[in-house]
């Protein structure tokens, strides 16, 4: 009997060994580094002085915004299919395109992604979003910008007018496919650091095998949904390696983006030489003029580009934009219908970090605040009569 018992020893040992190896790996990954003491201010400086321009790495993005799964919406996430065609002032193809690009942007935000990023200097960038059995690429080489989608074999080519006229940092961000690198996102938060934000340092961490300082930005006010933002800043180069945004009261991040793998060597040059493969449908898209960019950098809802109005300060600020007739077009699309819930005076979308309110009088209010704050803001500042309904369509889109 004893011998029989012994024969089961490997069967018990094997899972134990596997468990030990797995646990060892997890432990090694989370082992924190022991870095020289620095003040939060020093780390801010370190991040500001970072001048890493050439790197290649893998970026993981994950989000838990509390949005419904959009993959089942007809005409939704599968890029290129025609969704809410027709209606409104724009012609049907541009409406469908808007819907598709909206869906694609939402999909990028709300689902988990893995992407490879290659950068060499300020004007060469390649981002590859690794989907299952497919890939979306955004390639910038000098003035040429290519977007390639392998799932429907299409490419979009844009020539940038003149790099020097573009604002810093936003030049290589042409598009819906563009997934921000941790650096790009971190920069936005760091630029916004003001007295309404408390800056502290967390325990030293390790990201993608590199030791990093953990910079924690905590909003002082209580009006915002954002609980804290933590940015892992590489101890050696100051490059932001990971950004995690926590909702108020939450213990796990609602949105996080970070390197899982990073090399600071310049990637091979031929990665940036892209020509559309044979058989690909190529669309030439003129670069939007500077006026259009200034009018509205955040949305491509087409048509009018009225000035956004910002109310409130710091983390609790609310952006209000009069979109006029476009609002009804937006709410009629199947993707939005799935997301929106009717509230007093309009329709609202509430996520863990951000709220959006589409009022019945044709305004869009966005802010990192609860929906009722948006409703209050909408009620406090009634629609500006000037642009909405009568606004002429933008010159040739």
């Amino acid at each position: 009997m004893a011998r029989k018992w012994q024969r089961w020893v490997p069967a018990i040992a094997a899972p134990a060994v596997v468990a030990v190896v797995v646990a060892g790996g997890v432990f090694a990954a989370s082992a924190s580094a022991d870095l020289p003491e620095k003040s939060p201010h020093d780390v801010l400086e370190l991040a500001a002085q970072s001048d890493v321009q050439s790197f290649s790495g893998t970026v993981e993005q994950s989000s838990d915004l509390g949005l419904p799964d959009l993959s089942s919406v007809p005409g939704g996430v599968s890029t290129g299919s025609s969704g809410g065609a027709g209606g409104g002032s724009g012609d049907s193809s541009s409406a469908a395109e808007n819907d598709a690009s909206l869906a694609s942007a939402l999909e990028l935000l709300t689902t988990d992604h893995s992407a490879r990023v290659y950068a060499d200097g300020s004007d060469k960038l390649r981002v590859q979003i690794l989907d299952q059995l497919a890939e979306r690429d955004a390639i910038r080489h000098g003035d040429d910008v290519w977007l390639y989608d392998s799932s429907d074999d299409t490419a979009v080519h844009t020539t940038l007018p003149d790099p020097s006229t573009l604002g810093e940092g936003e030049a290589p961000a042409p598009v819906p496919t563009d997934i921000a690198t941790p650096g790009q996102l971190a920069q936005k938060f760091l630029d916004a650091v003001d007295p309404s934000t408390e800056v502290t340092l967390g325990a030293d961490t390790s990201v993608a095998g590199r030791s990093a300082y953990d910079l924690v930005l905590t909003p002082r006010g209580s009006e915002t949904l954002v609980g804290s933002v933590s940015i892992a800043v590489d101890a050696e180069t100051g490059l932001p390696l990971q950004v995690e945004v926590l909702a108020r009261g939450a213990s796990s991040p609602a949105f996080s983006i970070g390197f899982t793998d990073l090399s600071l060597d310049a990637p091979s040059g031929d990665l940036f030489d892209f020509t559309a493969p044979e058989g690909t449908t190529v669309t030439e898209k003129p670069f939007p003029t500077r006026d259009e960019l200034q009018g509205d950098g955040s949305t491509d809802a087409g048509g009018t580009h009225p000035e956004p109005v910002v109310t409130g300060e710091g983390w609790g600020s609310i952006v209000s934009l009069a979109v006029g007739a476009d609002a009804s077009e937006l709410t009629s699309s199947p993707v939005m219908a799935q997301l929106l819930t009717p509230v007093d005076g309009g329709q609202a979308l509430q996520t863990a970090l951000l709220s959006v309110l589409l009022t019945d009088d044709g305004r869009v209010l966005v802010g990192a605040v609860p929906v009722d704050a948006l409703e209050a803001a909408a009620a406090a500042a009634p629609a500006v009569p000037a642009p909405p309904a009568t606004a002429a369509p933008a010159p040739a889109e």
Partner: protein
Amino acid sequence: MSSDTPPARIAPAAAGVEAAAPDTHGGAPDLLGRRSRRALGWGFFASELSVLFRRRRTWAMLAALAAIPILIAVAIRVTDGGDGRGPAFLDRITQNGLFVGMTALVVSIPLFLPLTVGVVAGDSIAGEANTGTLRYLLVSPVGRIRLLVVKYAAAAVFCLTATVTVSLAGILIGIALFPVGPVTLLSGDSVSVGESLLRSLLIAVYVTLGLVGLSAIGLFISTLTDAPVGAMAATVVISIVSQVLGQLSQTEWLHPWLFSYYWLDFADLLRQPIEWSSFGGNALLQLGYVAVFGALAYGRFASKDVLS
């Protein structure tokens, strides 16, 4: 047919086995079979392979697998393309025949490949037990560990053969029916025909690796029962359950531990540059499955009273 005259180099070493089990191991009886352990191991393995690949069932399964790319290619050839729907890579076939093999792999990975692998792995021990030959195998100078290892290795070889069959049949029918040229990768870059064939080979290795974990599970189940059909069915069902769990967002924490987790990530080999992380992850994961279920199979088989 070679069934009556297996190659001379395997006959002596496998003699003990063959003499004891003439029904399934149809080698010529040869009583010179006292060789070193190593020679016996290899001889036994070769004999096991020849038994496996001389079975009509094995050939029928390989033929069915080869039929998948052929059906796909002929259907596309006859109907002149499609409307962009269907499995990945399907719409690229008309431009480049080399994609037939990859489309066929996408189609066969979820069901057909696990099905055939489940049949072979599930049959490995239970089949011998069912035909009453297991006892004879074990009284001949074949230890239980060696029997398990050889059975498992044969199942792994079948995984490779099955994958290569799908891939190769796809490439050949693609060359026959469609133009062939530089292959466009998922990243939009193109590689030469030679490199694309090399990548196809890598993909075959990747998919094979993905199936060895399932083979280990099949081997373990096979030691539990004397009914081969039950073991085969259970193995196939487990592969399906694993994929269903992999689809549910409620079990997301479990996903990286499922043996089917990396199955469709073979496309990472079609990126430029190649994304090796899934290859490594796949290999490690499958190694874990082989270790755990191999040990379980040993525990069960070594402590089992073999009565048939």
